[in-house]
């Protein structure tokens, strides 16, 4: 089951990446060759697999997760495609990683840090369970609506040493223009909200969406805000909704330059 899901994810990631391959002109020819090879063999597959093992051993796997979330195992993929979402017993709109922490605490185990590689792997595995689903953030749910609005606000807020916002570089009117050899992606069109966690070639590691946002903040001199903060989760809601509006399917792990 897991294998088919993974390879399905893989197929759709491949299709998407091939569409974009022509745009990757910030890459050298040797990088491009490596990228092609990775399309066939995403180095992040191994992290996802490891994450799955940890999730099984440490937390009891899909069965325990479904129980914790109060859904059946069959409903789990669709439910996961709705994250970050409002979880009543956690009292907030949270990411999958925060749910895993709460499960650990409930089971009397030590919390895995949100920014740890271990958590990134577990998160990637759990999100991959929703592969092929279109994200379904529900903005009719008041808490999720509020998170979406906060995400939008955070996205639009100019700050930091250079006075930039996420929107300075990712607004619709400058998509496709070039920032220092890098074409600016349309975050909805490249399905950012459905393809992270992804393997980031330039960092040689698995990165989560929130970790990716931190990368942009650091580069653009916006104060880097912590993973798991309300604003970060809200940004993930906002960016996920962009992919949802374009009908993009979840395909974890993604593969990025």
């Amino acid at each position, binding site marked *: 089951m897991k294998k088919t899901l993974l390879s399905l994810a893989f197929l759709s990631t491949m299709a998407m990446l091939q569409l974009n391959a022509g745009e990757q002109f910030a890459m050298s020819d040797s990088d491009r060759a490596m990228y092609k090879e990775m399309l066939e063999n995403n180095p992040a597959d191994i992290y996802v697999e490891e994450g799955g093992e940890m999730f099984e051993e440490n937390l009891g796997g899909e069965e325990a997760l479904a129980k914790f979330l109060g859904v059946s195992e069959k409903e789990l993929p669709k439910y996961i495609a709705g994250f970050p979402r409002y979880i009543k017993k956690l009292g907030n709109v949270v990411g999958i990683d925060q749910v895993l922490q709460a499960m650990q605490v409930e089971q009397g185990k030590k*919390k895995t840090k949100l920014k740890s590689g271990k958590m990134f792997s577990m998160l990637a595995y759990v999100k991959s369970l929703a592969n092929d689903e279109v994200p379904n953030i529900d903005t009719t749910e008041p808490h999720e609506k509020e998170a979406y609005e906060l995400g939008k606000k955070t996205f639009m*807020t*100019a700050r930091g040493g250079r*006075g930039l916002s996420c929107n300075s570089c990712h607004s619709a009117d400058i998509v496709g223009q*070039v*920032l*220092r050899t890098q074409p600016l992606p349309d975050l909805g069109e490249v399905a950012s909200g459905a393809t992270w966690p992804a393997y980031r070639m330039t960092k040689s590691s698995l990165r989560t969406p929130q970790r990716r946002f931190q990368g942009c903040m650091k580069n653009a*001199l916006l104060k880097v805000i912590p993973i798991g903060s309300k604003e970060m989760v809200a940004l993930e809601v906002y960016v996920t909704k962009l992919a949802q509006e374009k009908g993009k399917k979840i395909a974890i792990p993604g593969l990025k330059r």
Partner: protein
Amino acid sequence: MHTKIKCLALTATLFLSASLYAVDLTKAYDMPDASKMIKKDLFPEAKKYTMPKSCNLNDAAAIARGKYMFHNLNGKKAKKPAPEGLVKFTMKKGKDGKMKKKFKQFGNCVACHNIEGAKGAGNIGPDLTGYKANFIDTKARDAQFVYQKIADPRIDNPNTHMTVNLTTGLFTPEEICDFTAYIVSKK
């Protein structure tokens, strides 16, 4: 003896609270605060500036500094030695008490603008090649316009995608002069 009792009491409290709050999961996960960080990271509203009289647009050293800052991101990434009057880094005492390099941020204007000699220029902003002949000599623009644009472009375009360089405090008025001198110079 005393510590032992304290220890026991502590263990008992821990036990108690653990069992009392076992069902409350609202504090079971990390949700660090970011709103204070964001608030501190904001900067003042659009501001009008007058180019200082001390701005010497013909000073070769100023033009060299402007050029260097235009083409480089920061002191860590910049390869060539910094021109006279500009440093790549300063030494600062870190949290551990050790002296550490604090790299200076430059303009990285080339990320968005093409200009003479640019490598890997972006195209988010207009091409500034031939700026003197096309815009200054024709009187379409003047140095004051360029100064204001770099210092705070929100004055003539509230929705600009350009960086704000003086109001955010990243650069000094002298450094905005340097940028201006470079752009309006003959290259």
